């Protein structure tokens, strides 16, 4: 194992019989450097040796400036989150934490220099001991993937794992997940696990848990509290409300979306208000029209998915070959994210017509994210419907994509697919949009600025 070193630096290491984790003095053209040889990131160049100095700093030395390496000793890092037995208290509810990956708990990977997920109950207790005040926690790592690598296999596996836990009678389920596609998984789980008797809470972190300012601990604490005590028996996403360490928001799994590439408060309920907020004092619902916790196990598991589905994000001047390509490659469903109320340009019409005639399910959503598809207002919309494209109300594009794959997994009948798609199952289509379901405060406006000065962001 070369620990990331390649020729020519690897040749230098071998010439002086120095290996990674050796304590060394490196003589270079600019003088001597003493330290510990660290592994090299595989994505970094091949020309530098990485040395950790006694001060804890790392420096890189160019291979061709090295004249000699004298090895004095050996010291290997043992990166370990302090593991402690998670205490058990018969008075406390049972919560199951299912791990799929992401940075909710993580450690450093030397070869890539990046953060990789780590997961075990005792490790979690070692780093977030507050969890023991809330529940008896059991954990199970079913996957260890970044969220972009989640797919049908993992979605179905997760849904089945949830079903097993509900059968076992846990009080609630927490699902650790990478944040990038958390809203995709939240949506599909909402369809696959219908009418659950207990909270199913998805959680992740925007700042990995190897940072002191990480949001991981608070998110995990809030999610666990929700799973243990909340009356809301739905699939939810539990993430930071504001960017301040104040409270988490519980978003319905079919109405939530990641809206910023890096902010902590990136998850937002779109076209509606969140279900509740959660902090150290407990869960405070904002509304009552949620599914309530029950003692039965009368839920329905519908674990099917066909991934021959695509989202087409429409742009002006789009050519029909995009649609044709999908049809010719055997795709069975297309979700269009159209402009405005749900529009695409005329050149696409023949391709869309051909798709619909071939029995491909084509649904229209809006790339504005907020608002309903309304295809009667303009002639364009009516023409597109004539082709066989079905408006998908106020389903978010990603949610429509997940639902269409799920529906196509159940049936080949296009009419049945249409029926499934347009029948609300878990709030993915709502009968009305409340006025405060669309609120993006615009910075710079005096009254908004005044609001911001008075509230923690």
């Amino acid at each position, binding site marked *: 194992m070369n620990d990331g070193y390649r020729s020519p630096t690897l040749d230098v290491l071998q010439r002086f019989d120095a290996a990674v984790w050796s304590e060394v003095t490196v003589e270079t053209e600019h003088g001597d450097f003493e330290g510990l040889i660290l592994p090299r990131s595989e994505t970094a160049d091949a020309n530098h040796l990485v040395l950790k100095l006694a001060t804890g700093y790392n420096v890189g030395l160019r291979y061709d400036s090295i004249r000699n390496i004298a090895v004095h000793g050996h010291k290997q890092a043992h990166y370990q989150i302090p593991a402690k037995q998670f205490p058990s208290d018969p008075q406390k509810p049972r919560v199951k934490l299912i791990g799929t990956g992401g940075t909710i708990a993580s450690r450093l990977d030397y070869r890539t220099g990046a953060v990789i997920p780590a997961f075990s109950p005792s490790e979690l207790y070692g780093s977030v001991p507050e969890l023991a005040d809330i529940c008896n926690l059991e954990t199970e790592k079913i996957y260890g993937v970044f969220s972009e690598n989640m797919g049908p296999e993992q979605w179905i596996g997760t849904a089945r794992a949830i079903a097993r836990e509900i059968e076992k009678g846990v009080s609630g389920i927490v699902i650790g997940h990478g944040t990038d596609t958390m809203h995709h998984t939240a949506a599909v789980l909402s369809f696959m696990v219908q009418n659950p008797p207990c909270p199913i809470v998805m959680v992740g972190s925007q700042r990995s848990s190897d*940072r002191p*300012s990480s949001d991981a601990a608070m998110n995990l604490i809030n999610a666990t509290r929700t799973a243990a005590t909340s009356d809301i028996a739905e699939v939810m996403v539990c993430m930071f409300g504001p960017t*301040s360490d104040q409270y988490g928001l519980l978003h319905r799994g079919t109405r939530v979306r990641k809206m910023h590439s890096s902010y902590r408060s990136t998850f937002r309920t779109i076209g509606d208000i969140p279900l509740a907020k959660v902090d150290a004092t407990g869960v405070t619902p904002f509304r009552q029209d949620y599914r309530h916790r029950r003692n039965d196990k009368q839920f329905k598991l519908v674990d099917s998915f066909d991934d021959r589905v695509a989202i087409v994000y429409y742009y002006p001047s789009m050519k029909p070959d995009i649609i044709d390509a999908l049809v010719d490659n055997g795709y069975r469903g297309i979700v269009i994210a159209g402009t405005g109320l749900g529009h695409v340009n005329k050149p696409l019409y023949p391709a869309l017509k051909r798709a619909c005639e071939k029995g491909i399910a084509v649904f229209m959503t809006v790339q504005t994210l907020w608002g309903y598809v309304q295809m009667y207002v303009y002639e364009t919309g009516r023409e597109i419907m004539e082709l066989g494209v079905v408006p998908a109300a106020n389903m978010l594009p990603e949610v429509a994509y997940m639902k269409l794959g799920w529906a196509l997994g159940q049936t080949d009948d296009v009419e049945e697919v249409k029926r499934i798609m347009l029948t609300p199952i878990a709030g993915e289509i709502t009968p009305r949009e409340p006025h405060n379901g669309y609120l993006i405060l615009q910075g710079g406006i005096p009254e908004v600025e005044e609001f911001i000065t008075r509230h923690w962001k």
Partner: protein
Amino acid sequence: MQQPHIEDPRLNLPVPEYGAFSDDDYRALGLKVGLEIHQQLLTRRKLFCRCPAGLYDCHHHDAEILRHMRPTLSEMGEYDGTALMEFKTKKQIIYQLKSESVCTYEMDDAPPFELDPEALDCALAIARLLNLKCVDELHIARKQYLDGSIPTGFQRTTIVGIDGEIPFATESDPDRKIHIRQLGLEEDSCREVSDHGHTRVYRTDRLGMPLIETVTGPNMHTPEEAAAVANQLRYLVRLTHLVRTGAGAARQDVNVSITGGTRIEIKGVPSIKAIPRLVHSEALRQRTLLALAEVLRERGVTEDQLKDRSQNVTSILRNTDCLFIRQAILQGAQVKAIALPGFDGLLEVKTQPHTLFLKEFSDRIRVIACIDTLPNVIASTTLGSGISSAEWSKIAHLMQAGAHTPILLVWGRAEDVETACKEVMIRAREALKGVPEETRQALKDGTTGFERILPGPERMYPDTDLPPIAIDPARIKRVTENLPTPPWERMRYAREHHVTENLAERLSRSPAFDLFRALCDQFPSLSATKIASLLLDRPCSGARDLDHLILWVGRLQRVALGEIHFEALWQFSDAECPKAEQPSNEIIALSRQMIAHRFGPNSADPEARMRYWMGELMPQNRGKYEGRAMAEAIRTAVLGDAQ
């Protein structure tokens, strides 16, 4: 309670104010001092984002963010001691931010942008000036700070060079050198606004400003030497005109140890003048703590005897004559008593000028348990506390403490008191060993107070957000081309030309040096001291424009030709003075440079910078703004604020 009679001379060591000790006294203690100098760089932007650098506003902010910090593991898989201590304090940290000076990066809501190349050039240039070995590839590290002074919980920092030295000639050792351990490039932290109880408030405008940290070896042996080296380094970096000046642009950490003691870091010393007094106080404190440890060992005190056996004594003190305790109990406070067996007679021992050993406990309670209304601790040996001897007897009885065992009282919120009691015992156990590893804050009276446990290399963590940066040798060559002549070479040149010592000293840090040298080389027949005096003290030192300066250079030509006597130079009016030839282009360039450095936007003298900007901005804005408001705005922008 009866005071034990103390005759042990180790408990009565003299603790004089600064000034009473000779160099030999410090040498006898084995005093060693090292410096870490933080110096902001003069760049347009911050280090890891594109926010403007140097835009300060002390009075207004647009928004606030609340955060907490949790300790994490280091790269080597260990928790850092400081990090754990800060977590015990459970602080709410509030950041005040202003839209103009802070973006989502500083708020830790966005990853870093690439390191500012301008800042790296400055750091590389200064590293070469300090004769450091530059690294070939920069690795950005995260240095944990759980006090909240940086919203990420860590400072992004990188080593630019290690192992250099600068000459520090003294009378006894003209070849003396000061070792420069390393030069780091890092982002500046927030400015603290307040810290009360469990809430700490920071202003974020300074956050992310590029600064260099220069670390010296522990090569200084007296308080005065420490200040002299700090000055030397300050003048050196200022000569480059790559650094910011003015209040808060440079801050020193001073590392102090004595024989048998521990390296103590005194953080954030705002002025070099304050250094000697702080070093003196810290040396005395370490000497006394070592003596106390010896006494404790002789008394046979062990760690086992110093376990937390605190007792709740709230009910005993409910009606006490000690007003602040009675008040606190009325407001719901809990009072706990802690016995310190073996510590009889020690709490009143002076550790620093007008500071008792008891303050070591009080400081820990203040910082770690967040009980910060003073006094926050009462000892049974303290006279006049208002607590009656009957109350003390009841407490001693409850504690099952011996007659001479001192007892401490701590009061406040129950969980804070709990933390305080634990912390008192931790500090008591540390007393057996001598000087605990701490960073200490510089107090106004020249003494130091506990700030936090000294962080170790465990708090370093590679920054996974940024790749390493290879340094092209051509880049080092480019940035070193314009390096100034260092002060020691200036001194040598001036001495070789028999310039008087006082003028040589001043030339060594004056922007006039290069012009001085050029004139000396051009007019070897003239006295270098006179040329120096002309540039530093005589009318042309005030020359604010090129024509004026060239006029004086022309006069020098006349002197060199023997047409005028040097001393008669001042007696001519401008009109009377015979015209000279136009000086060489080099001399004109150097003159221009000197004027710019002395009076321009980069001048080392903040008042000169202030005048420059007033001169630039006032004429265009006259009438638009009130003069005084304008001046105030410029002052804030140019000088920063006093923090």
